[in-house]
Every structure is written in C-alpha cells, then in structure tokens.
C-alpha cells in the first residue's frame, strides 16, 4: 500500500513538473540562440523593452512612494473599517486583468466617470504612456501593499513603543526602527510587484491600446508579433523567462526575504488575453 501511495505521489509530481516546465523549455528549443539574439535586437523588441522599463519604473515609483506609507499605516494601526480597506486593496490581486482594463476605461476613459473633468483640463489618458503606467500600477500595487502590510505588522510592537517613549518622533521611529526591520519583506514585495507589472497585458491592451514605441510593452509585443514574426514573439518570451527566473532566484536566495515569499506571485505571466 505504502509503495503504491508513494508511486502515485511521484507520478503526480512528475506530471506537474513536466507540464509546468515543458512550455518554458520549448521556448528555448524552438529557436536557435543566434536568431534569439537577432530577434531580440529587432526594433519591435527593443522598443517594447524600453516602453516596459520606462513605464515600469514610473509605476514602481508610485507603488513604493504611496504604498509604503499606506502599508505602514495599515500594518501598525487597528481601526474600524480596516478589514474593508484591506479587502479593497487586495481585490485587484484576484481580478481578471480584462476587468481591470474595462474598469480603468469606465473611470478614466473619455466617457468614463471622470471623463468630463479630465477633458475640461485638456487631459486624455487612453492610448498614452500614462495609461500604461496606470494599468501597471493598478495590477502591481496590491502585490506590494499586501506583503508590505504583513512586513510592517510583523515588526515587534514593543520596539516601536520603546522608541516613542525614549523620545523619538513618529517620523524617526518609522525611519530608524520600522523601515530597517521590514526592509527584507519590503524588498521581496517590491520585486514581485515589479515582476507582475512587467507581465501586465489585459488591462494595458484595453486601456492603452498597442502602438510600437509608445504603449506596446513586451507582453503586447509578443501578442502582436505572434502572427507576424513568431521568432520575435518567442525571443521576447524567452527574455521574460530569464528575467522572471532572475527575479525569483533573487527573492529566494536572500535568506532574510525568505519568510515573505510564501505568497508567491507569477512574475510576467499575462494572466489572461484580452
């Protein structure tokens, strides 16, 4: 009985590993290293890389700049409605990206909730890099917030209290005690959020459209090139696999980060197609 049981476990594991790894492996076997390099240096791939990096960095600045103080507040205070706020912040985490896309249109599109106000100011967001940044921020921010809140909540309360009773200002307590103690968790959170943002597809293609050099990020370029030049699509895919692996390894290998990586994200995987 025992041997049969173990055999079934191993069989299930083998199938799972093969199924999850084969598509990744296939990307690298499908094209030769030489055409991989030449496809990656094609204008489409390079411009997509640039758009992805640029919008990703700007989005990440918003995620960290707003997310860190928000997470500190939520991680260290208890108040009525906190659970409701946490739920709202985590909702985009489980939301299909297409829903994010239509939601962003409904809120910020020309006919959206804020459409009249925005156009009165002469602002039109869809089809611009601003739209890409917003889509990326929308899907990536919850990844950061969720883990950053956990990181701040795990800081020993008595250390913060001690710092305050010894006369340190709240600002100094945050900077000298809370931040250094949670830096590992924040780092892991930040990395995974950035990875998720890089893979953003559905919300972007709906809200920002696809234009090479402006709004076409790497996942959008894969989709566009699939039927034009499949080598370029595969090369970009392979590049993102390598990047994802680097992200994952860096999160796993830094031991102090380890406890924060249990909530695992799927770096770069566009979770739906539009």
């Amino acid at each position, binding site marked *: 009985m025992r041997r049969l049981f173990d055999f079934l476990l191993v069989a299930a594991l083998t199938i799972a590993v093969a199924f999850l790894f084969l598509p990744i492996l296939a990307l690298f076997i499908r094209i030769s290293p030489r055409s991989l390099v030449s496809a990656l240096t094609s204008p489409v791939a390079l411009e997509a890389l640039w758009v992805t990096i640029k919008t990703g960095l700007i989005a990440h600045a918003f995620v960290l700049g707003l997310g860190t103080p928000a997470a500190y507040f939520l991680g260290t205070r208890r108040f009525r409605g906190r659970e409701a706020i946490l739920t709202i912040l985590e909702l985009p985490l489980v939301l299909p990206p297409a829903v994010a896309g239509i939601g962003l249109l409904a809120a910020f599109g020309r006919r959206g909730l804020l459409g009249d106000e925005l156009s009165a100011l002469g602002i039109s967001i*869809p*089809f611009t890099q601003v739209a890409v940044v917003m889509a990326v921020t929308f899907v990536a921010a919850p990844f950061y917030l969720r883990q950053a809140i956990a990181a701040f909540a795990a800081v020993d309360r008595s250390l913060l209290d001690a710092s305050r009773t010894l006369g340190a200002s709240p600002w100094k307590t945050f900077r000298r005690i809370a931040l250094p103690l949670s830096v590992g968790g924040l780092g892991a959170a930040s990395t995974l959020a950035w990875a998720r943002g890089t893979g953003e597809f559905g919300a972007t293609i709906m809200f920002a459209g696809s*234009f090479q050099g402006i709004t076409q990020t790497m996942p959008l370029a894969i989709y*566009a090139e699939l039927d034009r030049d499949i080598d370029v699509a595969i090369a970009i895919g392979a590049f993102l696999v390598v990047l994802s692996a680097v992200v994952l390894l860096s999160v796993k290998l830094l031991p102090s980060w380890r406890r924060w990586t249990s909530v695992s994200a799927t770096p770069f995987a566009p979770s739906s197609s539009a």
Partner: protein
Amino acid sequence: MRRALAACLALAILAAGCGSTDDSSASNGGLTVLAASSLTEVFQDLEPDARYSFAGSDELATQIEEGAPADVFASASTKYADELFDKGLTRKPQIFATNKLVLIVPKDNPANIHSVPDLEKDGIKLVVGAEGVPVGDYTHRVLENMGEKSVLDNVVSNEDDVKAVVAKVAQGEADAGFVYVTDVKPVGEDVTAVTLPDDVQATVEYPIAVVKDAKNPEAANDFVDLVVSDKGREALEDAGFGIP
C-alpha cells in the same frame, strides 16, 4: 517540441472558443470554425450550434499552422487562405463574400470628422488594424489609393483584429477608425459611418476552406455548403457583405 507548443495553443483556442460562445456544440459533434472577426455576427446567426473562434485571420492562420484543432477556416484575406492551402493544411479555398472598408466615428463625433482628409488634423486619435491583420493591410492600401497615407501619423493604436478597432471607436475612446462596412450595423447606435469612394477600395475577399486534419470533415463540408447556399448568401447580404 513543436508539438508541445501546438498543444498549448490548441488548449488556448479551446478555452477561447468555450469562453466566447454558449457551449452548445455537442449537437453537431463539435464543429469548430475559425473565422475572421468580421464574420462574427453573420456566422453565429447562420449556424448557432458550431463552436467558433473569431480573431484576426492572421492569428487564426498561425493557430492552424501550429496544429490547432479546427474544421473550417474562413479568412478576411486570400493571403492567409492561400498560404495554408499551399502548405497542404486546408482543402481548396473558395471565395464566398466580399467586403468594403468604411471610416467610423463615435456618434457624438468629438473630433468633427466627416471625411478622410479631416483625419489629417493634429491630435486626432485614429485607430486601425495592425499591419499583417487583413483590415490593417486594407486600410493602408485604401489610404495609399487616396493619397492620404499621412493620416497614419495620427494612429494611436494598432489593433489585432477589426472588432478591437470597432470597440475603441464605439466606446468613444478613439476619434475614428477604419473597419468593414459589415461591422457598422451591430454598433449602429454608437457610431456613424463615412463611406469611401468605390474607386479607392481594396479588394476584400473572404475565402472559406475545410481544414485537412478536420476532426469532423462531414460537418465541415456541410458548413461550407451552408455558407455558399442561397440561405447563406441571403444572410451575408443582409449583413452587408457582397457576393462574388
């Protein structure tokens, strides 16, 4: 490895097919039709029981090349149908419909566009099909015929199929877009069409072919017969297609 990739694509197509239609294909033994986006309404009306995957013809052709399970391929361009036939992946395609391009603007026409030259104005948000997507290639050809290629400077998005262009204009996010005449009717309440002169039109022909590896060749033949039958012609004409 090629096969592994094909299997993934096939799964994706199955998922897409199931998602976009009621899963009522059992009644005819699971006929799977891969058809150009512009055929969405007319095919669904003509044979509600088939399982459809509507997308850009170029994308569908790639899927068939990668071994996606399909019984019938109906394309918005002879280019992809001929390519698949030449590669021995389909039976001989036959032309069953023609179409024309038209310029659409949102009903409230925020950019005040009434003709193609109006698209030259600065700041116009024009949405077109990507190059390689039939509607995109036709758009380029028509603009070339009109000597208006410069309006492409105002393109803000290259979409992967014609319905994506329609959606962006119908939602009012784009100021204008080039689509097929037949795409206008379903969104008639949201857009206004600006017709283009006949002498600048590109030749838009729709070929249909049975896929060689069809799981269900009989149903596939029946479907093709239905499309070219009197009933099929009538439905196509009602939808605004031309009959060759």
